[in-house]
């Protein structure tokens, strides 16, 4: 299984420790990641793709064309990158007129969109290409006794006819992935509510705090030891965002966050140092004790 590795700019610039653990864990599962030269921002879906559509589509099409030139499907680590690239890939494959228009823009570069590859989020690769059976065979230290709140995020599920990942109203895939680790998925309400990252970014900190606070309280009530995410922006919001929102909201608990591939790494025998936990901002001594107990 070889893919063109689209690491995305948020994760590679702000959260490189997640890139490190992702490359290590996916490699051990037989996923080969090719460093494709010349990728840019996907571009970011809310601020760029929805405001200057033609330029946004051309930038995404250029990224896809780089993978096409290598004959490889793209693997992403981010819900937002997956959203932008899948939307444009879908639109340009389906609409010849739009494809011609975008290729006319791309004629200024050495690239053309042909529509020959697919764009896959790493969670989709784990579910469909690697397979959860193979993932389960790699588990050396099941994370028993750990209750994990799965936050799937918005942009990986909607619209389902393009994203083809999970039910936007009742997401179950991440819970299945948590089960494989030997952990218990938390049963909490507000499961499909946004993390609030975009609201924070574009100026509505009050709304974002309310959103995040409501989600965290719901996770906490359900006995969650941690929250697991599959998107770096969601990660940042639950980590740094939680630290800041807790001060403003006066929360008296914390729900530490782990990128799913960090949890998988722990279950595969990685240490807390290997997964870069010391770089996280939201801490919980109870969580670390529980993890160390599970790791023996």
């Amino acid at each position: 299984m070889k893919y063109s590795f689209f690491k995305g700019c948020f994760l590679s610039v702000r959260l490189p420790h997640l890139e490190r653990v992702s490359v290590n864990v996916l490699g051990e599962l037989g996923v080969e990641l090719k460093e494709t030269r010349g990728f840019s921002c996907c571009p970011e879906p809310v601020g760029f793709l929805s405001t200057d559509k033609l330029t946004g589509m051309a930038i995404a099409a250029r990224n896809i064309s780089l993978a096409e030139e290598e004959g490889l499907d793209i693997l992403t680590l981010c819900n937002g990158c997956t959203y932008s690239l899948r939307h444009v890939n879908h639109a340009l494959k389906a609409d010849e007129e739009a494809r011609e228009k975008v290729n006319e823009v791309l004629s200024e570069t050495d690239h053309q969109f042909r529509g020959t590859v697919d764009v896959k989020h790493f969670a989709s690769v784990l579910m469909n290409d690697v397979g959860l059976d193979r993932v389960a065979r790699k588990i050396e230290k099941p994370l028993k006794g750990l209750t994990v709140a799965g936050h799937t995020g918005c942009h990986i599920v909607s619209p389902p006819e393009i994203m083809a990942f999970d039910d936007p109203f009742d997401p179950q895939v991440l819970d299945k992935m948590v089960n494989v680790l030997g952990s218990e998925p938390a049963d909490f309400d507000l499961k499909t509510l946004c993390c609030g990252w975009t609201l924070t970014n574009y100026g509505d900190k009050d709304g974002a705090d309310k959103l995040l606070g409501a989600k965290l309280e719901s996770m906490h009530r359900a006995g969650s030891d941690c929250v697991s995410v599959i998107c770096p922006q969601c990660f940042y919001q639950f980590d740094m965002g939680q630290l800041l929102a807790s001060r403003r909201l006066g929360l008296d608990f914390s729900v530490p966050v782990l990128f799913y591939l960090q949890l998988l790494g722990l279950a595969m025998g990685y240490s807390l140092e290997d997964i870069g936990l010391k770089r996280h901002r939201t801490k919980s001594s109870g969580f670390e004790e529980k993890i160390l107990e599970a790791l023996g």
Partner: protein
Amino acid sequence: MVIRVNYDADDNLSVVEASEICLKCGVCCVVKEHSCHAQLDSQFSPKCTYVYDCLGMDLPSENPNIWLCVSCHKCEEMCPYEVSPIRFIESMKAKAFEDGLAHPVIFGEVANIVSTGFAFPLTVSSSRQRQQLGLEPLNESAAEDLMKIAEKTGLSGKIDKYRGEEL
């Protein structure tokens, strides 16, 4: 009551016409878990929802609240009449951007992507962390192509005009 939209303020008639099917049932905003996230902002209520606010303005592209939409598609999936508020809101965002009325963060982000290839500035700290972790250094090799693309589509001119600086 049908939502009001001033046709003169919009150049995308089909999107606007679709928005006029809205019967203000509120489903897109008031079902807490499955509907619009922006509804949690304290200025909105079940009687004056986020979507009514976006669709009901005379000059919807000048409404700063359009920038609260996170493109999650929940409104579209919940709407029983296929109004697709997200299409309307994104159309208004595009018009606002065209007219130089976009949220300042958007112009900064767009300019950064076009001039460096990254939405977030490459910092000394991130370079150091990547080196410590044994990861390849990041570079701005895509920027040359992106600036050609932005020149061709006319985006460069808008950035110069609205940010007052060269890329």
